C-alpha cells in the first residue's frame, strides 16, 4: 500500500565506478517507544531488542535499531506490519508503550561500493569508521536528520523522510560524480 511518490521511484539513482546509490522499494517501518521490562516485546516482535544505542538485531525478516534509551526503529516487510502492531497491542495493558506505523513517513537510500563511506562523509559529520558494520545511528546528512544503517564495510542505508529526499538525492548524485572524478584523477 506504500506506492512511492512520483518523484521517488525505487531503483538506481546514480552509479559510478566507485559508488552506487539506489532507492529501496517501500518497506514497513515502526517506531517503538517503551521502557522497563522489554522481554515481552522481544517475544511479540520475534527478535531480541538491542539494549544499547546504535546496536541492531534481526529476526525473521525484521530488524531493529536502538536509537535512544527507550526508542527503536523497526523495519519489516509491509505485510507484517499489521501483525506486529496487533502483537504489541496485546501487551499494552501491562506494558504501556507507543508503537507507531511510520511506513509512509520515510524512504531508504542504499549506498554501495568502495566510495560509499566517502560519499556519506560529504554530508555526515560523524566519524563513520566508529559506526561498525552491523550498527546504526540517527545522525544528519547535509543538515537533514537521517538514520544510518552500516550494513557492511562498503554498504550502508540512509532512512530519510520523504519530503527531504529530493534534496538528498541531489547531493548524493553530485557527490557520487565528484568521487568518481576524484578516482579518475588519482589513476
Amino acid at each position: 500500500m506504500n506506492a512511492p511518490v512520483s518523484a521517488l521511484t525505487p531503483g538506481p539513482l546514480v552509479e559510478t565506478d566507485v559508488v552506487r546509490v539506489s532507492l529501496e522499494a517501500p518497506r514497513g517501518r515502526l517506531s517503538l517507544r517503551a521502557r522497563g521490562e522489554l522481554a515481552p516485546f522481544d517475544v511479540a516482535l520475534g527478535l531480541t531488542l538491542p539494549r544499547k544505542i546504535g546496536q541492531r538485531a534481526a529476526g525473521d525478516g525484521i530488524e531493529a535499531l536502538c536509537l535512544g534509551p527507550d526508542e527503536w526503529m523497526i523495519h519489516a516487510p509491509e505485510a507484517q506490519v499489521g501483525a506486529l502492531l496487533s502483537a504489541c497491542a496485546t501487551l499494552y495493558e501491562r506494558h504501556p508503550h507507543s508503537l507507531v506505523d511510520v511506513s509512509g513517513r520515510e524512504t531508504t537510500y542504499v549506498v554501495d561500493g568502495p566510495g560509499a563511506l566517502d560519499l556519506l562523509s560529504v554530508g555526515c559529520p560523524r566519524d563513520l569508521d566508529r559506526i561498525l558494520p552491523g550498527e546504526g545511528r540517527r545522525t544528519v546528512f547535509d543538515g537533514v536528520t537521517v538514520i544510518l544503517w552500516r550494513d557492511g564495510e562498503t554498504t550502508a542505508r540512509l532512512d530519510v523522510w520523504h519530503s527531504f529526499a529530493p534534496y538528498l538525492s541531489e547531493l548524493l548524485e553530485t557527490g557520487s560524480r565528484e568521487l568518481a572524478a576524484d578516482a579518475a584523477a588519482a589513476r
Partner: protein
Amino acid sequence: MSSHRVAGKGRIDTTRPVSFTFDGRRYSGAAGDTVASALLAHGVHLMGRSFKYHRPRGPVTAGSEEPNALIGTRRGPGRFEPNTRATVQEIWQGLETTSQNKYPSLKWDVGAVNDAGYMLFSAGFYYKTFMWPKSFWDKVYEPFIRAAAGLGVSPSEDDPDRYASRNMHCDVLVVGAGPTGLAAAHSAALAGAKVVLVDEHAEMGGALLSDPDVQIDGAGAWTWLASRLAELRALGVRTMTRTTAIGYYHQNLVGLCEKLTDHLPDLPADTPRERMWRVRAKRVVLAQGALEKPLVFHGNDRPGVMLAGSAQTYLNRFGVLVGKAPVVLTSHDSAWFAAFDLADAGAKVQAIVDTRDSVRDDLRAGASARGIEVRLSHTATGTSGRLRVKSLRVAPLRADQVGAATEIACDAVLMSGGWTPSLHLFSHTKGSLTWDDTQTTFLPKDTPEDCHIAGASRGLWGYEAALVDGDKAGREAAQALGLKIAAGRFEVAQDRTGSGVSHRELPSDRSPARSKAFVDFQNDVTAKDLRLAVREGMRSIEHVKRYTTNGMATDQGKMSNINGLNIAADALGKPQPQVGLTTFRPPYTPTTFGCFAGYHRGSHFEVTRKTPIDGWAEAHGAAFEPVGQWRRAWYFPQPGESMDDAVRRECRATRESVGIFDASTLGKIEVMGPGAVEFMNRMYTNPWTKLGIGRCRYGLLLGDDGYIRDDGVIGRLGQDRFHVTTTTGGAARVLNTMEDYLQTEWPDLDVWLTSTTEQWATVALNGPNAAALLAPLVEGVTLSDDDFPHMSCAECTVAGMPARLFRISFTGEVGFEVNVPAPMGLRLWELLWERGRQYGITPYGTEAMHVLRAEKGYIIVGQDTDGTVTPYDTGMSWAIGKKKPDFVGMRGLARPDLQAPGRKQLVGLLSEDRSKLEEGAQIVFDPNQPVPMKMVGHVTSSYDVGTSGRPIALALVEGGHDRMGEIVHIPMPDRTIAAKITPTVFVDPDNARLKL
C-alpha cells in the same frame, strides 16, 4: 632560456613549457612555475600598483603572504578572480592574468599623483579631510571614497564553478609539510596513528624545497624529502597539497580549503574548484613555520626589493635569479645563506649589508670565499629607481649615529629583518602567547585545545632543531592517544642555523617626515603613519591598526604586524607586550565565498521540502511560496489570470461548491501512552480530559511567558492516543518543546511522542459539496451531522486506503481533512480531483486559504500573533481551561501586565474607502496629532475582495475589543486611510455554513 633562468636549478620542468599572458603580453614559463616566478624569470618585477599611493610594486615574497603581487586571473566567462597572489597562482597553458589598480597602464599610472601628495594622505586623512562641510558627505565624499576603495575588480558574472565540502576524522592532523611537519607526521604514523598531512603549496617540503644543499641522514635534502614522502604514504599518511588550513575551531575542528583545479589547463568534469574539509582531529600538530620580516627603510617597497628567503626560494625551487647583481640587507644570519646561494648560481652579489656589528665567523668566511663585500654596522637609508630598484643607499652606524652614505648599484635588494613564527592557527585556539625579548617576537604558550606546535612556528631555527622538534610533537600526539614510539634520529649536515636582531624602522639621516619607509605594503602604511597615530592619541595596537589600516590588507598583517608593533611600542615608550598584538582571525589566507558555500547554491541552496502532491501542483501551474522549509502551492493561476483573479476564483469556488487543498505540511504528532491526556492537559491551554474518543478540539499552545506559540486541531483517537496537529512552520519546534518538557519536567508521565508529519498526506476538502464528493468513498463512517458532526475524527477507509478522517474547517465551510499514508496521497488527490469534476472542484493554494480563514477570524500564529500576544488579546479566552490546575503558560498569563486593560487586541478592520490596507501598516487614533504620532497597533492580515464583498483586515489595536465601530487611521506615504473597527468574523458569524 629566459633571461633570469638558471640552468639546472629549480624543481620546475623546463621540458614542459607553458605560456600565459600578463596584461595582454605573452610570457613563457615551465610546468611548476607560479605567475611570479615565471615573470621574474623574464626579469619582470613590476606586477602591481599599491592601493593608496599607486606606487609601482613587485613581489616581496614567494608565498601566500604576498602583499604586493596581486593580479586578476581569467579562464573564460565567469571565471575571473581578482586579488589572486601571483606568488601562489601556478601557470597553465592559456592562463590570462592582469595587473590591478592602474590606469591607463601598469608602467604609467595616473593614480600615482597620490604618491606625490603623500604629505596629505597621512594616517587618518579620511577622518580629517572629509569632516566639513557636513553636507558634502553624502553627495561628494562618500561616493568618492567608495569609488576609490577596493582592490581589484569585483566579478560581475555568475561563477560557473562548483564547490564542495567534506568531513574527515583522523588521529593526528599535521598542518605544514616542512621538515617539522614531515617529522611529526612520520613519528605519529610510525606509532600507528591515522595521520593527515596538509600543505598549502603545490608540493610538500616547505623550506627544504628552498635549501637543497642541506644533508639529512646522509642524503641531499630533496632526496631525503622524496624518500620520506614515499615512506609516509606507505605508512598510510594522507597527504594533501594545495590545501590551506584556514581556521582552527572548537574541539579540534580545523577547516581546510583544498584548491583542486586552479592549476589545471583543462577543467575535469565533475571536479569542484575548491573543497572545504571539516577535519575533526584527535590531536593537531601545527608546523606552519615562520614568515620572514621585511626591514623598514625609505624606499623599501621598490620593485626588486624582496625578502632574502624568497629570493632563495625563487632560485632553488624555480631556477630564477631575481637579480644578477643583488645586494643583501639583513639583520639575520639566514640572508647570508641566500647571498651564498645566489652567488653560487652566478649572481654578482654586490654586498652583504648587515645592521649588526658582529657576525659569525663561518658566515664571514663564506662571504670572503665568494668575494662578497661585507658591510657590518650599516643601515639603509633609501633606494633609487622608478619601476625597478637601481641602487641601495647605505650608511655606517656608530653609536646610533648615521655616518656618510654611499650608493651601492644593484638590480635587487634582498632584505631580511628576521623571522616571525606563524601563530595564526595557534591563536585561533584561544592559545595564549608569551613575548620573547631575545627574538623580539611572540611565542606560543598554552592552548586549551589538543594541539601541539613545533619547529619554527615556536621560534626554533635550523633544520636539525625543526626535525627533532617535529618528531617530538608527533610522538607526543601519538602518546596522548595511547600510542608509543621511540624518538627519531636525524643526522643533519650543512645545517643552516642562525639568529638575528630585530629593528624598528632603520636609523636614517633623512627627515622622518619625508621618509616613506613602508610597514604594510598593500595598504601603504609607513612608519611615519604609525608614529603619527600614537601622537594623535592612539594607545592600543587595536586603535593604531584601525587608524592607520596597518595589517588590514589581504595578507592580514603577515608582513606588517610585528614591525608595526615594534614601532608603535617605541613611540609609546612601552614594551611590546603592553601594547599588545591584534587578534588573528580565520581564514589564514583569503578564501572564496564559494568554498564556504560549498554545495549550497542554486537549487541546493537550502532544503526545500516537498509534499507528495507537489508534483501535481507544479504540473497544474501552481505558483509556490516558501513556508518554513516547505514549498507550498500559493495559488493556481489559469491562463491570463492575475494572482488576485486566481485567489478570488479559488475562494468563490470553495464557498460555492468544493475546493481541494494540500494540507500535508501541517505538523502532526502522535501522542501515545497512559499519560497522554494528562500530558495534553499540561501542554495546551484547553481541557482534554472530557474530550470524547472520536472528537476534535482546537488546541492553543503557549510559552512559559503566556504568549501564543502555536495552535492546531487535535483529535482523540483512543483513550491514550491523540493525533496532534501543529502549524507548518512550528512542527519541529513544538515537538522539541514537548520532548523537552517530557524529559526534564515530567519524566513521571508514561507517554511518548512520535512525529507523523510525513506519515500522513493530508487532503482538505471544503465547501458545501465536500460531503457529497467524499461520502461515496468513505467506508466505516457516515458523513452526516448526527453520525459525524463538525469536530469529529475517525480511523476509517477512504477509497480503499487506510485513513484518518477529520471533520474540521479552516474556511468556515463544511470541511474534511483526509489523512492517508503519504505515499498514497497523490493517488487520493487525483481520485478526488477526478470525481470532483462534477462539482467543479477547484484546487486552492495557501493564499485563498488565508483569505477564507481571515473572513472567519481564524488566526494564523506568527502572522496575527508575534510572540507578544495572549489568548485574551486574540479574544480566545474560551480556549483556556479555567478549572485546570496548571498548563504551560498559566503562570505567565497571570502576570498583571498580561491582564491589563488596553493591551493590543485583535480586531477586524474595514477601510472606509474600500481599499486594501497594507499588512504591517501602523495605526493611529488621531491623524491630526503632531509627528511623531503615537502608534496604537498595526495591520496583521489584509486581503483584497474575497467572498465578503470588500477588502478585509485583521489588526492589533490598543483596547480594540472595547472600540467596536470606532474609526482609526492608517497613515500611508501618500494619504491617510480611515478604517472602522469590527469584530473579526466577516462571513457567517453564526457558523450556519458548518452544518450539512
